């Protein structure tokens, strides 16, 4: 598992208010909290910075990600730092500060551990369990859990099976089994392995030659060059003509674990989703009104949004209706200068603006047909992400 431990520390006193080990315990929480507060104070003094800035401390095989809140500081021990994990850390700190704001002024026993447990499960464990995730039951699981639901489940299922297979065998809804598996994961009685989704977008982070390693097929080794951070895995698999998509996904998972590839940040995935949607919409429009008018629609819609969202000026149309995002904008997204929610809202506004201009050009009913056609195309290309776009707002 990527995340090893979570610590939430009160900045004023350096006391560890909450901690949880997702795997084997590594650090003493009080020792760690003192160390982190001391180090961050030292760097603040040295850099003469007014506010404490986020840092990461790297060890062998682990990284301590530090994120300051208003009156707390979050520390996440991970195997490898990613923007997604940093976003999760920010969110969990915010939730903690909202739920236990009293602790800012007084030290009280508020049953923090039991009351904050659901929030930590929601943030760090729930997204690891999917219907096609493989559950691997630990050998001595009985010593890890006393939860009756978990015990009942683990007594009945084989040592390794998917969540969906377990639900089918036990004749339970998949959602119920997923919930129990999450609790089992929390108790450290099982591990889960999730294959990347076929429409997930990955980018290569290492350019070593992996073809001779013996662990990977030739197609997967060639696929590294195609992982450009814009192409879904299903399309990459088609390009390298892989015969077994499941094996391809398992090998990508292997490469991700060894940090040779990584899943793109949420913001970057959103850009891929919306540029694909916009391009498909404009292409369909161009077949009806021609390329010149389709370009006019895009530029007019974008012009109307530039005052409030100047960075939309970096979303351009190349030849005909090829939507292109400038590298400076991509860089800002990767650095986290633009939040995924702001990105989503702005790109959705651009798409809606284009749909509105199109309505003036060809009428309401044809726009609905074009929007539905684009939705179908996006669902085929990026099935799990298509739901992020508010399609109904394009034609209602």
């Amino acid at each position, binding site marked *: 598992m990527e995340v090893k431990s979570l610590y939430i520390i009160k900045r004023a006193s350096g006391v560890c208010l909450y901690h949880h080990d997702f795997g084997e315990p590594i650090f003493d929480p009080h020792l760690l909290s003192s160390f982190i507060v001391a180090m961050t104070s030292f760097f603040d003094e040295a850099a003469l910075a007014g506010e404490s800035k986020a840092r990461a401390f790297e060890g062998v095989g682990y990284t301590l990600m530090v994120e300051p809140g208003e009156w707390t500081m979050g520390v996440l021990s991970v195997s490898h730092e990613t923007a997604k994990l940093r976003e999760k850390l920010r969110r969990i700190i915010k939730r903690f500060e909202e739920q236990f704001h009293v602790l800012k002024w007084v030290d009280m026993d508020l049953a923090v551990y039991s009351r904050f447990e659901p929030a930590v499960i929601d943030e760090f464990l729930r997204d690891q369990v999917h219907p096609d995730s493989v559950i691997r039951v630990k050998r001595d699981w009985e010593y890890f859990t006393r939860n009756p639901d978990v015990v009942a489940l683990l007594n009945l299922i084989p040592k390794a099976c998917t969540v969906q297979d377990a639900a089918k065998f036990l004749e339970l809804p998949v959602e119920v089994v997923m919930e129990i598996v999450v609790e089992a994961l929390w108790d450290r009685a099982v591990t889960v392995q999730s294959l990347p989704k076929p429409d997930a977008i990955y980018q290569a982070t290492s350019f070593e030659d992996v073809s001779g390693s013996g662990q990977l097929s030739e197609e997967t080794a060639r696929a590294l060059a195609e992982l450009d951070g814009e192409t879904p895995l299903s399309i990459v698999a088609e390009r390298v003509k892989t015969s077994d998509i499941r094996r391809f996904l398992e090998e990508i998972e292997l490469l991700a674990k060894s940090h040779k590839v990584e899943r793109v940040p949420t913001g970057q995935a959103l850009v891929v989703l919306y540029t694909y949607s916009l391009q498909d919409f404009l292409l*369909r*429009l*161009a*077949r*009806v*009104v*021609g*390329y*010149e*008018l389709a*370009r*006019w629609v895009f*530029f*007019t819609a974008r012009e109307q949004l530039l005052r409030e969202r100047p960075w939309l000026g970096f979303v351009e149309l190349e030849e005909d209706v090829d939507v292109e995002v400038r590298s400076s904008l991509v860089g800002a997204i990767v650095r986290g200068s633009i939040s995924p929610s702001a990105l989503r809202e702005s790109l959705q506004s651009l798409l809606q603006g284009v749909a509105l201009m199109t*309505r*003036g*050009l*060809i*009428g*309401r*009913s*044809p726009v609905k*047909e*074009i929007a539905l*056609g684009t939705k179908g195309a996006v669902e085929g290309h990026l099935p799990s992400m298509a739901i992020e776009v508010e399609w109904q707002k394009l034609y209602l």
Partner: protein
Amino acid sequence: MALPSVLPLLPALALPLVVGPLAAAGVLPLMVLYGMSGVTASVPGWLALRSCTARGLIRDDAVHLMGLLISFGLVAMAVADFSHASVAFCEAPYLATYSAEVVHGTGVILWLIGVLAYCRSVASVLPPARSVFLSLTVVALFVSLSASTLLALVLSHLPLLHQVGHGFYTVTAALLTVWVMGVVLLFRNGLIGRPLLLVFPGMLALLASALLSWPGSQYTDVLSVSTGMLSYILVGAGVLLLQGLVSDAHKSFG
């Protein structure tokens, strides 16, 4: 973005309404009428051709292709009408007339290909349009073939070649009319429907011209040529308006 004004069109539309009756009354020779018809086809034809080719001749763009082929068609029809006008000076007037008809038919075929290509492009993007165009095509083919057969039976004294030629003209004009009607209905609430609203009566006038060409009497020939002139002006104006929209869009953002 606003459509260019169609007011300059009005004097041109009056032309066939004036010269037609003059030719029917025998005041204006038929040869002169054909010549004027050639002019009314060539002027919008050349203007539309110039507008369509302003940003390149060959482009993968259905709207551009339709405009281009309609422009070429107008030019072909102008050549046909000029040829008709010079029939009196030919040694074999029957053959000269036949050649002019073939060139005219080529112009109509170019219109057919252009409009068909655009309709196919629209149908590829709007699924309901597919069934609409298919139904309209079936109805148009049935009605026009039936009408042509009936006319051929009633006017059985006409040469077979004459009957086949005019039958072809009638069927293609009917198809053009229903396809353009379909497109106008689809985009009736949008800006792009307005130039096409000029093209539709132009195609109706073409259909009327095709039907009036059957009997072969001087009076019906005059009416056929006059309605043909009306068709050239309206279709040419529609294409020019559409190209005007496209040019304005190009000038705004390049």
